[in-house]
């Protein structure tokens, strides 16, 4: 019986304890990491720079992204391209480009367009393309789209992948954005 009593006492004690453990502290906000809010593609040529920007400041939130292309591309021209990725939910904005450079063997960009052709201008430690630097060659006059896709953990050795063909790449999509382009 004594044992029973002591167990009951412990029970009551435990309940009293928990009843007191209430705190009114507000939780800390989470600054979403690894969020890519912004992709800036810069195309440079002797006739000047063209900037294409995709910006979705609320990330996975409901607001639509803002897509801008600074000007039309010239016909039959070659542009040296570079990509910059940012997380602008943080202040100052965090560069995601550096993270991708660090793990370039696990990332690859793909460029697809019926209007322009592209080639890789960089490579990872294994000699496979990454796509943070690229060249873009325009042909005839027209309007269309340029889609830039970033795949995480693609199989870079699969057929055609190192040439920029996404079909066999696999992996997960980290970025898939489409810019409307005009070649004139």
């Amino acid at each position, binding site marked *: 019986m004594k*044992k*029973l009593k002591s*167990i*009951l006492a*412990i*029970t009551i004690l*435990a*309940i009293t304890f*928990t*009843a007191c453990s*209430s705190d009114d502290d*507000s*939780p*800390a*906000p*989470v*600054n*979403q*990491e*690894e969020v*890519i*809010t*912004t*992709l800036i593609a810069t195309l440079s040529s002797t006739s000047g720079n063209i900037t294409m920007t*995709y910006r*979705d*400041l*609320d*990330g*996975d*939130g*409901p*607001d*639509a*992204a803002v897509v801008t292309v600074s000007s039309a591309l010239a016909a039959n021209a070659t542009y040296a391209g570079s990509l910059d990725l940012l997380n602008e*939910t943080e202040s100052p904005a965090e560069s995601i480009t550096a*993270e*991708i450079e*660090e*793990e370039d063997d*696990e990332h690859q960009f*793909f460029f*697809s367009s*019926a209007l322009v052709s592209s080639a890789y201008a960089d490579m990872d430690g294994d000699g496979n393309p990454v796509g943070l630097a690229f060249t873009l060659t325009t042909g005839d006059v027209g309007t269309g*789209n340029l*889609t830039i*896709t970033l*795949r*995480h*953990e693609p199989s870079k050795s699969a057929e055609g992948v190192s040439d920029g063909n*996404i079909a066999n790449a*696999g*992996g*997960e*999509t*980290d*970025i*898939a*954005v*489409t810019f409307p382009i005009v070649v004139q």
Partner: protein
Amino acid sequence: MKFYLTLCVFCLSLLAMAQECNSILKGTIDDFHDGTKIVGASLYIESLKKYTVTDLEGNFEFTNLCDGIYKVRISHIACETKELDIEVSGNTVYNVTLEHHIEELEQVKVEGSSAKTQTNSSQETVLKSKNLEAYSSGSLGDALKQISGVNSLNTGNTIVKPVINGLHSSRIIVMTNGVRLQDQEWGIEHAPNIDINSAESISVIKGSGALAFGGDAIGGVVVMSPQRAFLKDSLFGKTITSAQSNGRGYSISSKLTRTYVKGWYISGQGTLKRYGDFEAPDYSLTNTGLNSKSFSINGGFKTFEKGFNVFYSFLNNEIAILRSSHLGNAEDLENAINSPLPLTINDFSYDIDAPKQDVTHQIFKTEFYKRFKRFGRLDVQYDFQNNKRLEFDIRVGDDRDKAAIDLNLKTHSIKTTLKLDSNHGNTYEFGISANYQNNFANPNTGVRRLIPDYDKYDFGVYAITDLTINDKLRLDFGARYDFNYYDAKKFYQTSRWEERDYDIDFADLVIEDLGTQLLVNPKFEYHNISASAGTTYEINDHNALLFNYSLSNRAPNPSELFSDGLHHSAARIELGDLRIDQETANRFAFSYLFSSEKLTINLEAFYNLVNDFIYIEPTGTEQTIRGAFPVWSYMQTNASLLGLDLSVDYKISKQWSFKNRSSILKGRDLDLERPLIDMPSNKTVNSLYYNNEKWLNFNASLQSELVLRQNDFPDNNFETFIPTTGETVLIDISTPPPTYHLLHLNSDITFALTDKTNLNVGLSVQNLLNTSYRNYLNRLRYFADDLGRNIVLQLKLNY
């Protein structure tokens, strides 16, 4: 002759007088419960070989006793035999109470007829240890599927949630050793954190009729009970080890129990399981392993009149989730659905990589009970549960090894029940319970919280009565009131807050504005009424009818209210709704039972009308930098579920027997006039058993499992633009997989090693024909086939 006899008697009485052996021991024997006199109980004094029986008033009397202490053994049919040391000094009156083992009897009856134990008129099935041991290496959800009407909702093959008559998650209560499991059961990919090996028997109660466990079990209640303690000096245990080909894994589970005649008992149990990547018939399912560790200690003191129980259990599951199920966006989903093979297939490995879950659940419980003469039993219980859930996503950079979800749910519960059983055949039970629950979402994950920090308070009170009208008719009634209160603190993206129009309806909840994020403090309360009424009627020895009506209310769970974010494993954005109110179910159940020596039939029909049924369905797509994602939103509708479950057991001969378990279910959305999403397929399982005691008690069975294609499903297919191809495609996430048929083979033999030790060797083959199939209720059905052939060798040692 007469003279000698008289002389002899005279001498004897003289002798007796000389020792003053003329004391009388008398008294009455009555029943502990209701005080009625027990007629015909026998009393025996061993040292004197004296024997008497109680008369019609329960009186007994021993005459011509010498003063001293006697060991008296008292026994009566249906009572536990009692041994008492009674001191006789002169004429002694000693009254005895005997315990009519009503409850114990009921338990025994259950073993015999596999009918009911927790409730009177609910549709209830009991699985005993023999049925459970075969699933020692599996999960609770796997074991429960042997009951008709019970299915499972899977994420792969190691995350298995039970589905009772089409309902799951928060609509099912899982009780383990008297504790209601609080383990974030709201999540579709959160399996019950319980080791199947810790249970000696499991009772599944369909519907919400068992109000003692809670008022919100619209689906049903799963009651897991540990080994009952016996009042004798004994040490026993069992060890089950198994090795299996699929997953190249093993499981070992051991249990040891020590009991004492005085009532003390202690039992320890532990289980280890380890599996690597499982295999579908045609390929390896990369990253599907499991690493599980658990143990529990159960001890206490138990007599009929009083006792206590202290219980602690620990469980850790590290579960890998199919690599190919991790997706980037709707385009990846499209690729995955259309790809004949999973997108990632690597060589076999025991590694558990992201995506994965790492869940630890601890339960501490203490319980105390006392019986009062001619009154009833009072029970007081406190329990504490600590659930820690880590979910790891595929991440890059410094966050690679950081959990994406880090939740810690702590629950304290206290409950008191009073069961009045002094009125023979009629019992009345009252109970009060209170819970305090705290959820903490660790902000260090660097991912916005899917479930916010909250405090939840619950209070419940109920009354149940079970009335025996005559030996054929029994009635039961119950009523319950529950109060739930949430006090949550959640960050919303300002854009989401405005998109959901919360800025209009819930503006007063905002306590802090951080620009792009708002901190809000929802305080919601819910009042729930539940009730049940039922009757069982035994027509004759073979036929019985059972009817039950239950009303239940369930308050929304945190996931339904607060979910808000991207779920990578499902490539979907899930949105809860603060406006969701509780759902109300009216369930009508009717059962017919036939039992004869050879044939047992149990036909269970039900109609469950759920008003404001809470469900999640695709409602559109949202564009992000990663591409489009389908948005799944929690909504409410009026729904009906109509079903029929059939169990047939037929003894063909002494050695052959046959079993059928079949179920049909129709779920309708009454508002939209279309089928409900995620309803289990109709299925029938037929098994043929053979047993030959002469061949080392050889058992063999062949089981045929036929699962029909679910033809009733809502069309949630959606169109999305695929940027890489420039096309808009229809993504088919609705069409259920085709009908499939599987064969399973089981066999075992038993060796008696000593008179107390035996070894059972079992060999079974699941999916004998290595059939490729997918199940509608497996969330990974888009990505890969289900398991291929699996050969399991099981050794079971009882000692």
